[in-house]
């Protein structure tokens, strides 16, 4: 499946036709996406949708069964050093060596990265309020996330990959992480890809978005284009309706009696024509929130998704 609003030109990450099975379960199904340089790319989807599996392919931790993955134009499985030396990564589990002290952790990580910037590392450590003598295992969840973020940032990577960076964290630490993402792209025009199920934070910081559902991309493109192609129409009928017929342009239909709400993607005019035939008047038309868009797409059955994925 291809999406017209992104192209492979100047893509930091290029994933084409990637599929992956775990046993009989299809974890990724023909996924293609391109992450442009300098963008903040938000990857959203329910738990188990395939976000982490996709990120592991980008890191070269999993080998593509079919399709291809290129990062900076290189294959991350064949050339791990060429790729990973430019990628800062924070995993969902933030698996840092528990027995190390913070200063040892910095020293240890520094050895792997020629581009490590000790002044920047020190500046981040102070900003995050991390005690150099504290052992990693004694740090709170939030402090461990900050320590993980510090070592992902301190060598000024060209690409920052964050897997559910703010899951289970309080709002203050979440804000620190979001600010780090913003500074990373603002300062140096670097690229960030992060996965999240917190749609309001995705909407705030990302400019590109991919929505993954049961291993398939259901939406992919510029965030503002995705938002502006969706509409929420509020309808009034002259007489109460018990149900509305399913319409192929409608992603979701809900309501009761005389007032119904329909969410559509890019086919507003065709939808309005069918609605008029049903005797409905459109009394309100708004751009829905990302939350509503997500729920509408995730709520559809897998087979239905096919016809509605292309953006207008």
């Amino acid at each position, binding site marked *: 499946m291809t999406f017209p609003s992104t192209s492979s030109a100047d893509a930091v990450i290029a994933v084409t036709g990637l599929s992956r099975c775990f046993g009989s379960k299809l974890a990724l199904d023909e996924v293609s996406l391109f992450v442009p340089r300098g963008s903040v790319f938000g990857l959203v989807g329910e738990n188990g949708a395939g976000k982490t599996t996709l990120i592991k392919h980008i890191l070269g931790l999993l080998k593509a069964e079919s399709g291809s993955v290129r990062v900076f134009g290189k294959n991350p499985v064949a050339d791990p050093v060429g790729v990973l030396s430019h990628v800062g990564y924070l995993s969902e589990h933030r698996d840092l060596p528990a027995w190390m002290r913070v200063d040892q952790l910095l020293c240890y990580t520094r050895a792997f990265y020629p581009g490590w910037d000790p002044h920047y590392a020190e500046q981040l450590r102070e900003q995050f309020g991390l005690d150099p003598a504290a052992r990693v295992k004694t740090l709170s969840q939030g402090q461990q996330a900050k320590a993980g973020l510090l070592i992902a940032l301190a060598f000024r990577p060209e690409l920052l990959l964050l897997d559910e960076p703010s899951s289970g964290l309080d709002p203050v630490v979440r804000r620190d992480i*979001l600010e780090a993402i*913003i500074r990373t792209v*603002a300062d140096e025009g670097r690229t960030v890809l992060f996965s999240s199920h917190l749609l309001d934070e995705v909407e705030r910081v990302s*400019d590109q978005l991919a929505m993954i559902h049961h291993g398939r991309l259901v939406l992919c493109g510029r965030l*503002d284009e995705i938002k*502006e192609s969706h509409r*929420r129409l509020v309808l009034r009928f002259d007489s109460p309706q018990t149900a509305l017929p399913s319409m192929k342009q409608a992603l979701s239909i809900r309501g009761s009696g005389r007032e119904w709400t329909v969410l559509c993607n890019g086919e507003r005019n065709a939808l309005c024509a069918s609605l008029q035939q049903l005797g409905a008047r459109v009394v309100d038309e*708004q751009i829905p929130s990302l*939350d*509503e868009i997500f729920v509408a797409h995730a709520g559809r059955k897998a087979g239905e998704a096919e016809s509605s994925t292309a953006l207008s």
Partner: protein
Amino acid sequence: MQINISAKEGAPIYQQIVNQVKYLVASGRLATGEEIPPIRALAEQLTINPNTVARAYLELERAGVVTKRHGAGTYVSESGSPLARRERVRILTRRIDALLAEAINMGIELDEIVDLLRERHAPLQTRSGK
């Protein structure tokens, strides 16, 4: 500059910034010639993508609300007044629409509304005339 971003609102974030800056200019909370925050500062203040702020500023510049001075920041346009007037009319129109909708629901006729407006307006008139 006080901007509130809400993800619950459907409008894209850049659009929310554009609307609110226009509102601030139209209502006089931002004066002509006043500097608005640099892109990066506003992005960090609101924790949003700097590209989004850049897009909002570009739209505001195209609309003539703000002017970029080369290497010296972004300022509310001196010539912002015709737009500000249009924007004021737009804001007021929305309020009037809401008022009319409510009046119609209550079964109040237009003449009655106009009389009521005059009545409410009179004391304000003498006060501002002093």
